[in-house]
């Protein structure tokens, strides 16, 4: 008998199936697409040109057909550790069979085929099979054909109860109820099963189940993750996903709205909500964090998640260097990053947990949306009306009103400095400051205060400076250096840097003055900056006014009484700032006014006119230009104008109040103010290569870019949903297949690249992908085909031979078996117990609410224990699929977790109400959980358990002697009620012996294989 190797000598080699997996796994790491320093000896083996090129050494790796001249052959067969390839330090040597595959491949001409997954899928002819009548769908023929080639025959059909349970879990994540099973079994019509399947597809339970995998992939949770792990308001997006599945939103739209809903023409609120898909990544507010570092991490997370979710590519591998295996360059990566980094955003979360902009307002009704439009129109009208009142007004006297605070800064008191305004409150040393940190120096007038950059003054009672409140700050100011950054005045915080800044703010940046009213920097702010820098070591009177308009145009800066030119930095103030006290010269964690001095600080709660500012500085009114007088006269002595201004402000307030009545919800919003994207050297946030700007783009080597598409996320979505795109349809088909059949047609759902697994049924995968696109990306229709197929309907019990030949059921010559997911295990227990509270959508809840597990509150740093133990992830990063393990902790959850014990108890109560006969109760309980009737031996075991347990009723450890605990006294000052005394939390058996025995029986059933497995 010939040896396998001798036989193989002539066997033709399939590049994609046999050769590429070897090359990719052992060679591409050093000789692959990574063009940077990663490539060794100048050799690349991922394309024919590189492989056959004469190298510097003079060698040629591959001379097609010529084993002798191909250096690669010598190197892979070498026994010299210095010579052999792959090198020993890779620790993945070639087996003899693999060496032989490469040898034969080179001998047969070293033909390269394109990677299967990077070629557009084509429909394949349905194979002819031995028993065509078995097939119920063309997919069955593909399955039976492959199985037959592996020597396997389709299994008999599963019994109807098993099939109903299987389909019910596949489509709704819940078992059928006993009533549903009975109805199904008694329905003898030929389409009984189809009817049930259609009912399940139409049930809201469908979305509640199918969405779970998408939530894993999208790293959906209810907290931000990272230190502190504050609540993240995200559930409206979860409800969007749920609704999208239930409404059978075509998958191309599902994809497009999530990637780029904001870029669609006239996007709806829901389309903008959908884009939160890109915002669900973790965010930190840990003090001292560097915003750019985390902004880049956030963008990376978006690219990675879109990569796994829609493209089946490990995009994030190319952040630091060209991809080692797939044709994705580092440049491609940052082109994608440019698409997802198109936001005007801060990389850090505010310490106070505000929704980080950009955001969309969540109106509950169309009526509310209409009202917003009306109020916006009213603002526009009021603006027009104001313009109409700008009529020439007789010159008015220029008289500066008294300030509300005035700090001459002549001397320190023990706690700070005194206010010269009668009855004014003193400014206090800011907590890091004390008199020795601040110096009294000769000032513009008498003494002035010189700041050290760390210490300053706070005006604890000067608060309530909102975005519709006018304000003026004036002081004599002297720079002691050309400060790169210095805080002169602010009413903000700075715990997480700019991410936390909210309020009024006067900064020196590179010697220029920046004057801002901020909600959250940089997205929601109005801000201007002077064109010219201030001179160092000269006193200047700086006056900054704000008219309360919420607009950049309302922010003005004056030097020595004259208005100076400013540029607009931001003009997008969307919401009100937090209410903080005013602080001067310092800011915690920020650079204060180092070496700068201030004198004669004055504050008004109005906006002074230009004329008043001039007069304040000592200029004579007569010297002022006519335009300045005209503006002053309008504001101060034209009642029509004043009235129109007041009306405009009212209209603005009304609009703001309406907007702010709707919760802000994070979303994507393309902005021209987004930072430009550069390639980051080694992917490090602080090493942008300014010679390598990256325009938005895609890895076009995989599928060409169509130049007519917009270069943004919408273009990306259109590129992905191009019927010819090789990635998107295959990825989703595989996910849907795995949902129904337990595992995908290629096991590595997240990776279609070179290092991914090859599909078990490539022709079927491609045919289904083509069908799917042709069907209008119809998800429910595809799932319907799957569950109605003969393949799905097979019995899952293998013959011994089938089990030996195909232990993992790769060929699907029997029905799918899978352990229920964490959610299914819990939801089934609640449903069986009759305690499941079914309500679609809404805020996330604690497990004690007994809602379906999809609604369980997910705290990222402490996910629900029983979910983790049953292999659900933490939702910190994209999780394309779950592992399936089997551990003792799972048994402990099923038998001892309070929720499961409670379910067992409720189930016992339920069945004991329906019947008084223990055996009948047990049968009913078994059916509620496992769908089928218990087999006689199973029933015998449970009856026996019942008898034994009933004979030995529960023993309770005696309660500890009661110690009188004083009732917590209500604090008369506090409006809060005292917390109720906690009841002991542990689960407890009922005292009644029959019910206790039945509860233990139910608990045992819940822990059994028949309960936790779908067969």
């Amino acid at each position: 008998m010939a040896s396998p190797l001798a036989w193989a000598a002539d066997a033709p080699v399939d590049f994609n199936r046999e050769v590429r997996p070897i090359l990719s796994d052992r060679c591409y790491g050093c000789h692959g697409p990574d063009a940077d320093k990663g490539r060794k000896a100048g050799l690349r083996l991922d394309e024919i040109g590189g492989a056959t090129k004469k190298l510097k050494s003079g060698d040629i790796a591959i001379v097609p057909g010529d084993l002798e001249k191909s250096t690669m052959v010598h190197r892979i067969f070498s026994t010299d550790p210095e010579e052999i390839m792959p090198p020993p330090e890779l620790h993945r040597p070639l087996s003899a069979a693999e060496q032989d595959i490469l040898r034969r491949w080179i001998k047969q001409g070293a033909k390269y085929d394109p990677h299967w997954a990077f070629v557009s899928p084509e429909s394949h002819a349905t194979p002819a099979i031995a028993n065509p009548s078995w097939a119920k769908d063309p997919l069955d023929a593909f399955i039976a054909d492959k199985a037959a080639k592996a020597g396997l025959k389709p299994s008999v059909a599963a019994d109807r109860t098993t099939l109903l349970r299987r389909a019910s879990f596949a489509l709704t994540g819940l078992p059928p109820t006993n009533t549903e099973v009975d109805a199904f079994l008694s329905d003898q019509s030929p389409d009984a099963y189809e009817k049930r399947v259609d009912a399940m597809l139409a049930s809201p339970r469908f979305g509640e189940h199918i969405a779970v995998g998408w939530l894993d992939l999208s790293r959906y949770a209810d907290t931000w993750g990272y230190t502190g792990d504050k609540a993240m308001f995200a559930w409206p997006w979860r409800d969007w996903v749920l609704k999208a599945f239930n409404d059978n939103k075509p998958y191309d739209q599902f994809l497009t709205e999530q990637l780029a809903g904001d870029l669609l023409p006239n996007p709806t609120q829901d389309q903008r909500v959908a884009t939160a898909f890109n915002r669900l990544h973790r965010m930190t507010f840990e003090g001292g964090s560097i915003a750019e570092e985390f902004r880049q991490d956030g963008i990376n997370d978006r690219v990675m998640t879109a990569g796994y979710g829609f493209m089946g590519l490990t995009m994030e591998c190319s952040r630091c260097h060209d991809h080692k295996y797939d044709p994705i360059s580092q440049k491609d990566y940052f082109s994608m990053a440019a698409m997802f980094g198109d936001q005007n955003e801060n990389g850090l979360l505010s310490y106070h947990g505000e929704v980080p902009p950009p955001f969309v307002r969540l109106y509950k009704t169309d009526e509310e949306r209409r009202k917003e439009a009306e109020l916006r129109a009213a603002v526009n009208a009021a603006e027009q009306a104001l313009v109409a009142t700008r009529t020439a007004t007789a010159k008015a006297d220029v008289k500066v009103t008294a300030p509300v605070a005035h700090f001459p800064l002549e001397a320190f008191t023990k706690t700070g400095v005194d206010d010269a305004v009668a009855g004014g409150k003193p400014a206090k040393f800011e907590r890091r400051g004390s008199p020795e940190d601040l110096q009294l120096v000769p000032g513009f007038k008498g003494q002035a205060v010189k700041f050290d950059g760390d210490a300053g003054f706070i005006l604890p009672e000067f608060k309530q400076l909102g975005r519709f409140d006018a304000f003026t700050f004036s002081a004599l100011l002297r720079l002691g250096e050309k400060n790169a950054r210095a805080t002169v005045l602010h009413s903000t915080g700075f715990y997480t840097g700019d991410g936390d800044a909210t309020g009024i703010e006067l900064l020196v940046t590179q010697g220029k003055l920046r004057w801002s009213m901020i909600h959250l920097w940089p997205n929601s702010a109005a801000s201007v900056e002077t064109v010219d820098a201030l001179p160092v070591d000269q006193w200047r009177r700086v006056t900054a006014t704000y008219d309360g308009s919420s607009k950049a145009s309302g922010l003005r800066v004056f030097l020595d009484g004259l208005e100076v030119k400013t540029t607009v930095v931001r003009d997008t103030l969307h919401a009100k700032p937090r209410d903080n006290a005013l602080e001067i010269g310092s800011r915690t964690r920020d650079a204060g006014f180092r070496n700068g001095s201030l004198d004669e600080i004055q504050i008004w709660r109005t906006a002074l006119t230009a004329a008043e500012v001039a007069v304040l500085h000592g200029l004579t009114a007569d010297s002022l230009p006519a335009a300045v007088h005209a503006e002053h006269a309008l504001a101060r002595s034209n009642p029509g104008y004043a009235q129109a201004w007041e009306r405009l402000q009212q209209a603005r307030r009304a609009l703001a109040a309406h907007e702010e009545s709707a919760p802000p919800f994070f979303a994507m919003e393309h902005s021209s103010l987004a930072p430009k994207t550069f390639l980051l050297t080694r992917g490090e946030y602080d090493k942008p290569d300014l010679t390598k700007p990256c325009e938005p783009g895609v890895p076009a080597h995989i599928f060409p870019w169509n130049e007519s598409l917009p270069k943004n996320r919408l273009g990306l979505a259109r590129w992905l949903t191009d019927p010819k795109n090789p990635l998107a349809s295959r990825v989703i088909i595989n996910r849907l297949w795995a949902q129904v059949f337990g595992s995908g047609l290629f096991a590595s759902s997240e990776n279609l690249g070179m290092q991914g697994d090859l599909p078990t049924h490539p022709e079927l995968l491609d045919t289904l992908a083509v069908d799917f696109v042709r069907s209008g990306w119809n998800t429910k229709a595809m799932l319907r085909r799957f569950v109605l197929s003969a393949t799905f309907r097979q019995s899952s019990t293998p013959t011994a031979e089938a089990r030996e030949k195909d232990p993992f059921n790769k060929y699907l010559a029997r029905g799918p078996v899978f352990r229920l997911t964490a959610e299914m295990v819990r939801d089934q227990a609640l449903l069986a117990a009759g305690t499941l509270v079914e309500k679609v959508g809404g805020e996330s809840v604690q497990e004690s609410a007994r809602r379906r597990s999809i609604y369980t509150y997910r705290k990222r740093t402490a996910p629900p224990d029983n979910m983790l133990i049953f292999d659900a992830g933490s939702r910190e990063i994209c999780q394309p699929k779950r592992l399936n393990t089997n551990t003792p902790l799972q048994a402990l959850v099923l038998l001892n977790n309070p929720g499961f014990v409670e379910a067992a108890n409720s189930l016992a109560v339920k069945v004991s109400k329906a019947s008084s006969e223990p055996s009948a109760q047990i049968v009913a309980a078994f059916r509620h959980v496992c769908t089928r009737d218990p087999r006689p031996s199973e029933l015998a075991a449970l009856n026996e358990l019942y008898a034994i347990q009933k004979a030995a009723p529960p023993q309770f450890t005696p309660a500890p002697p009661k110690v009188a605990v004083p009732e917590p006294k209500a604090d008369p000052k506090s409006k809060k009620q005292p917390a109720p005394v906690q009841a002991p939390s542990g689960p407890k058996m009922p005292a009644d012996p029959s019910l206790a025995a039945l509860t233990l029986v139910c608990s045992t059933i819940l822990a059994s294989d028949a309960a936790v497995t779908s067969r």
Partner: protein
Amino acid sequence: MHPSKPSYDSLMQHTRRHFLGASALGLGALAMRGITGEAQAATLPKGTHFPAKAKRVIYLFQAGGPSHLETLDPKPLLREKHTQPLPDSVRQGQRLTGMSGYQATLPLAGSFVDFKKYGKSGVEYSDLMSHIGGVADDVCVIRSMHTEAINHDPAITFFCSGNQVAGRPSMGAWASYGLGSMNENLPAFIVLVSQDATKDQPLYSRLWGSGFLPSEHQGVQFKAGKEPVLYLTNPEGVSPHARRGMLDALGKLNADQRAAELDPEVDARLAQAEMAYRMQTSVPEVADLSKESPETLAMYGESVKSPGSFAANCLQARRLIEKGVRFVQLFHQGWDQHGGLPGGIKRQCKQTDQASAALIKDLKQRGLLEDTLVIWGGEFGRTAYSQGKITKESYGRDHHPRCFSLWMAGGGIKGGQTYGQTDEFGYNIVKDPVHVHDLHATMQHLLGVDHERQTFKFQGRYYRLTDVSGHVIKAVIA
């Protein structure tokens, strides 16, 4: 229905999921050998790569970033230059956190506490670490640790899993995956969090998570009190006898199911339930510290009597590794002294110094130290300059990833030495830097594992604890 008797054992062997499941808490150690076939299985570990010097690890993680300048790395120059600004030549433009990065001046702060030489080796420890000083000849101090992240969350995640990004397996999960447990009734990786610590920075289950490894490798948290492991206790009214009865019934249900479905997974599930049952006895046993001798208790200090304290957890750790647990990780929070450092670090050392030293002595007298690796340290060090003002009594220090210290003992470590050196300011490393990956590589080496060969293929890439770098520090090995 079944024409030939199925070769049931062979089916068991073929079922990868069964294998993974069974390896959860020790059974897997038996099945670890000779698994081949499936693609996934090919990357499974084969036990040790070479003889191990350490069989187990106790990692005393000091969360928050202990100052090396008041504990393990004496810097007399800082006292001389107290309150003088940090020279730019020392800082070299390195990044600071946003907490002190905008500070107008960066005044150097000398340690408020003295250092002394200890043991025959004469290694210097601060007065706050005098108990560890007492076992100086068993301990190797590394003074040249450095890391990449500058904030707690990324830094501690990096230290515990070799990557700042969430989702990678933790050190203990790798040890569980690679080596399994030595006791089939206890988890391979157990986590103990101090209850007496100042909880300044939070901890998260990610730090002992299994990442992309199967979830049975995640650290199991032991808590002081009635229920050391979550859901370990039977519901009130269910006696051990009743539970036994339930398991017997469960055994019958599953036997029937296995016969009907011909699925070895059913047996695996039952085996796990039985193991859970055994844990219900073995865990309370190992968690019961009351049988320890008065001498032992005295050695760990007064606080050993308060359940869940660092001292009690040190003793608990010894009991766990004695029973064959592979990796025990303690977490003690409270080291984040941005301000008020003298008071804060005194408290921290008082809570941890005596018990850490007692653990070494206790292991040694039981003959366990030689193959148990003990590591003490945090996620980064602290700045030579003060964050905020220096006053007569106090100062603070910001995060400093550029250099910090930790110590190792037992399990193949050469005691009585220091390794690596920082400059006179304790700001930069001048000799023998040790990256976190190097420490991980060394730790794995001592466990008999080649850090470059223990990999797990996930999403097409071969991942390891040490990412793509890391060198074994040979000089610290005996």
